[in-house]
């Protein structure tokens, strides 16, 4: 019991550490890559090639003055960013990054906890993520924030449906909701991207909308709404929203990798140590591809209009996902 | 090991809180929220009984209660929006046009 708790605690710390570093450097990578795409160089001043930029940003976030607007609902105003960041971190707990390993006489899975309804857990936590956005906008007592949070709320509720329905197809093929189980099912068959290409397209689009990223970044459309739901937030509270957004990006990328791209599957070769490390490397490489896609899309696509966004979600994504569920169901039933 | 009676007592307590909210609250949205609390309390009793009797039916009932609650929330909130738009207040006590 004590050993189990200890191992879990160590895993939590490791994951948290890796995650925070990853967020810092994804952000740097984003600035660099988008800079290149716009014929700029991005940050270069702090450290070699601007590699210490995240540290400078962190110091700035900590030292900035923390402003609470007049007439804000104090409790909710403080609660909202915490909620956002906690929920974002919570969903990462069920993500497996590799197979079960034997290390120093301990057999453990490379994930914080393996629950047999892992996918439902992620969907549940994602659906709660709306509260962070909605409460932030409402409690700041500002028009821009309120409009941003109303947009964000309805957008996230709408696309969550498409997100969930898109995942039903692969789940039917795998016959389990456990993320580890889904990856292992792909070892016997093939990656689910092949039979579930439609589901993947829907999932990817809905994931962009769920994380409020370009081209669906209407909740924080800086051109029209100031900064949307986090207009009034400053210093660490803003940093928390920022952190939550990037952690959510990592989570949905991980889920896409696990469900559609075989997770840590890949050709194994070489000596024993390399064999043990390769799955994790494959997983990280696949996730990085998705993260690059996020940045690439941000540098490429313009923003949707609000009615286009809702129309697209309800009239295209959801029927498409439903049709995919029906066809997959038929195929599974006939086999 | 938690006795079944504990779950039922919790369910009863939550149900009573829901009833209290329904009776004493003045604003129409909180009254509606109290109804949801009562539904939740009943759901807990369903699941607890289903577990004690080793049957899945308890869970199925909860599923259907949730479905009905979703439909109810949609229609109910639409009604609230319509009422507030026509009347300009959330106070349930002021909605007594039939009496006057």
């Amino acid at each position, binding site marked *: 019991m004590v050993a189990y708790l200890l191992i879990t605690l160590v895993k939590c710390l490791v994951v948290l550490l890796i995650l925070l570093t990853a967020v810092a450097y994804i952000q740097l990578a984003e600035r660099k890559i988008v800079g290149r795409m716009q014929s700029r160089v991005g940050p270069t001043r702090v450290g070699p090639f601007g590699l210490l930029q995240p540290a400078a940003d962190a110091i700035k976030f900590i030292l900035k003055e923390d402003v609470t607007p007049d007439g804000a609902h104090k409790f*909710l105003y403080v609660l909202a960013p915490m909620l956002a960041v906690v929920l974002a971190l919570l969903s990462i707990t069920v993500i497996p990054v590799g197979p079960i390993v034997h290390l120093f006489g301990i057999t453990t899975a490379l994930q914080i906890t393996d629950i047999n*309804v892992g996918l439902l857990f992620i*969907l549940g936590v994602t*659906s*709660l993520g709306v*509260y962070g956005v909605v*409460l932030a906008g409402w409690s700041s007592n500002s028009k821009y924030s*309120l409009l941003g949070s*109303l947009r964000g*709320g*309805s957008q996230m509720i709408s696309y*969550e*449906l498409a997100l*969930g329905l898109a995942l039903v197809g692969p789940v039917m093929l795998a016959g389990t909701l456990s993320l580890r189980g889904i990856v292992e099912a792909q070892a016997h068959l093939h990656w689910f991207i092949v039979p579930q290409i439609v589901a993947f397209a829907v999932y990817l689009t809905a994931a962009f909308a769920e994380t409020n990223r370009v081209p669906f970044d209407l909740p924080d459309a800086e051109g029209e709404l100031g900064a949307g739901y986090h207009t009034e937030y400053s210093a660490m509270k803003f940093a928390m929203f920022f952190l939550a957004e990037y952690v959510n990006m990592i989570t949905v990328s991980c889920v896409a990798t696990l469900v559609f791209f075989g997770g840590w599957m890949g050709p194994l070769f070489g000596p024993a140590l390399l064999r043990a490390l390769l799955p994790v490397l494959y997983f990280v490489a696949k996730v990085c591809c998705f993260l690059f896609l996020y940045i690439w899309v941000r540098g490429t696509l313009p923003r949707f209009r609000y009615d286009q966004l809702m129309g697209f979600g*309800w009239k295209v994504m959801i029927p498409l996902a439903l049709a995919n569920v029906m066809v997959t169901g038929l195929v599974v039933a006939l086999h | *090991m938690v*006795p079944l*009676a*504990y*779950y*039922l007592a*919790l369910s*009863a*307590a939550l149900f*009573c*809180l*829901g*009833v*209290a909210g329904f009776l*004493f609250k003045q604003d129409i*949205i*909180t009254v509606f*929220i*109290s109804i*949801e*609390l009562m539904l*939740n309390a009943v*759901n*807990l009793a369903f*699941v607890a009984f*289903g577990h004690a009797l080793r049957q*899945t039916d*308890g*869970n*199925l009932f909860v*599923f*259907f209660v949730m479905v009905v609650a*979703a*439909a109810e*929330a*949609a*229609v109910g*909130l*639409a009604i*609230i*929006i319509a009422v*507030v738009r026509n009347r300009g207040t*959330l106070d349930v*006590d002021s909605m*007594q046009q039939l009496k006057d």
Partner: protein
Amino acid sequence: MQLALFLVFALVAVAGGVNLLLQRHPIYSALSLVTVMGALAVEYLLLGAEFIAFIQIIVYAGAIMVLFVFVIMVLNAGEVAAPPKSRVAAFLGLPLLTALALLLLTQFTGSIGGAGLALGDPRVGPAEVGDALFHRYLLPFEVTSVLFLVGILGAVVLAARPHRPRPAAGQAPEALAENPAAAAARR
């Protein structure tokens, strides 16, 4: 261990319920209910109802309650300031409520013995629920889809503004106001 978990989350649930009653602003009441739902989801997990526990979070806390919060935001609902007019509830409510509470508690704790429930002994996961849903409960399941259709239509009809010639500009707020109800109905 299990008893401790039960007690902690039972306490959270009851505290949420009490807070729902005490808060004057509807948004705090709604958030208290979300807390209750989260605590109940843990109780469901203790009872082995995995599927129901997560559906509770996804549907109840993540969709239905978000809708409540939305409507509170859209209507800009605040505290109701008017003094209560109904005397019946104030006088009869408390005694009747106490009677109901006593009745329920004595019935529940009295009639059923202290047989303990093991942690998640019969697990009811998605597979079991799905099996029952599409075999024994197929007809009710299909009927609920009709219910949803009626719900969508009802919500759209009720929440839509009476038709009138619209000004060319300034439609956005209206679209926003109508959205939550329509979104809810489609769930």
